């Protein structure tokens, strides 16, 4: 089966910078799985996610997302994926509903799925309230709603539980498990909260200093490390001599 995401020997350096953010980076995400993407601050997680969306162009190497090249087939990739990168940004004067309607309109889709999606993420009654008045947690939920509303095949989530309260974290966890389990969606999720990743992920990718240093199934981690994923993560970091956040 074609991988949902495949990064092969990727390098990425930003213009005007001598330092490569990613180098010799290989990553494979299988279809239908939840891929937990771990790494210290500045390791290159967000850069890798942006490359998958065609928001950045690799300096070297090849990116494939659902069999597509994000640089050359950017719109097709954006239609097939849902994403929440860094702090989600919205059209502030519009309501949550209007934000989702505009997002769908860019894809030529109607607004049929908007109410269901807002219910799904726990934002059922925001009415005409402008997004500019939303709390951090509400914005995070809306970011998730926007990623989901067009029913994508692949979800790319950068720190999706940032700013959520314990109830929100639990709901999001269950939502991701449902989407992957019942919905067959592939999910790549980066997070600094290792315990959360451990509760949802099938596969773990650890990135350090711009390279994926480990890619392993969570079941294997559990079998080989009595301290679980946290123990595994710190052992990987210490082996690489990497200072972690």
């Amino acid at each position: 089966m074609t991988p949902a995401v495949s990064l092969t020997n990727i390098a990425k350096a930003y213009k005007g910078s001598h330092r490569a953010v990613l180098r010799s980076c290989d990553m494979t995400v299988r279809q239908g799985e939840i891929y937990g993407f771990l790494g210290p601050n500045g390791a290159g997680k967000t850069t890798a996610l942006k490359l998958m969306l065609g928001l950045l162009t690799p300096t070297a190497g090849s990116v494939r997302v659902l069999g597509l090249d994000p640089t050359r087939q950017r719109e097709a990739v954006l239609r097939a994926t849902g994403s929440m990168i860094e702090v989600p940004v919205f059209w502030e004067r519009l309501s949550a509903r209007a934000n989702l309607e505009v997002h769908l309109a860019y894809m030529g889709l109607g607004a049929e799925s908007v109410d269901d999606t807002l219910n799904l993420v726990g934002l059922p009654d925001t009415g005409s309230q402008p997004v500019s008045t939303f709390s951090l947690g509400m914005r995070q939920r809306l970011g998730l709603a926007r990623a989901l509303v067009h029913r994508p095949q692949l979800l790319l989530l950068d720190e999706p539980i940032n700013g959520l309260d314990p109830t929100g974290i639990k709901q999001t966890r269950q939502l991701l498990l449902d989407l992957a389990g019942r919905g067959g969606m592939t999910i790549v999720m980066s997070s600094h909260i290792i315990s959360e990743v451990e509760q949802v992920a099938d596969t773990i990718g650890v990135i350090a200093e711009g390279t994926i240093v480990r890619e392993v199934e969570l079941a294997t981690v559990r079998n080989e490390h009595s301290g679980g994923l946290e123990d595994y993560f710190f052992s990987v970091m210490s082996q690489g001599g990497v200072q972690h956040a």
Partner: protein
Amino acid sequence: MRELIRLEQRKNTLSTYLKMSAWVTVGVVAMTWTIALSAGSEPPGSEEAALMSSYIGLANLAAVISMAAFCVLSAAMHAKFTVEEYSGNRAVLTLSCPAPRKKVLAAKVVLVSGFTLVAAALSSLASLAVFLLTEAVFPVVHGPLEPHMIIPMAADVVVMSLLAVALGLIGLAAGFLKRSTPVTIIAAIIAAALLSSLASNLAKGDGGHALPIVAVTAIAAIAAAFALTRWISGTVESMEAA
């Protein structure tokens, strides 16, 4: 394209800019009156007196003032609709839209330029109409208003409205280069000041009208604006949301 323009309208309210256009119209009428009333303070027989005491000269000055105001308004809109949308974190949102990047940009530019053209033309015509109507009751300009004057007045309105669009786009290009709202507006102010000075000086030298030279300048500005817009479009196509 029509749908993309409609989405831009939905994301950004135009009512603020409509209100500002109305205020510009009021301001232009007031300034036209002030200039007409102060014509008597100029030395008799001077170029300034001739310009300020003829209908064509006053209409030309009103069109120049209107052009400068709408050029700045256009730049402010470009800054809001385009420069801010491709800067910082918002660039991730804009570039993540699953629509052709060039078309998304074109929708923004067409909406702002179209609004500027229509608002500038209607505002100039409205202020001219109000001024001429008041002349029927309280005349401040000595001399008759004749039908043959209408065509150069209307041509002035069209040329100056096009110039407002072109200079707004030049402001956009400068602001886009630096991804800066202040740069967008300041560049438009500088361009408007230069063109206003040129147009009013030419009008003086021409005894009240110099439309052909101003029209050539406008065509050059429109050509420059078109080239710069193509450059922005190419930049957006390969832009990275770093």
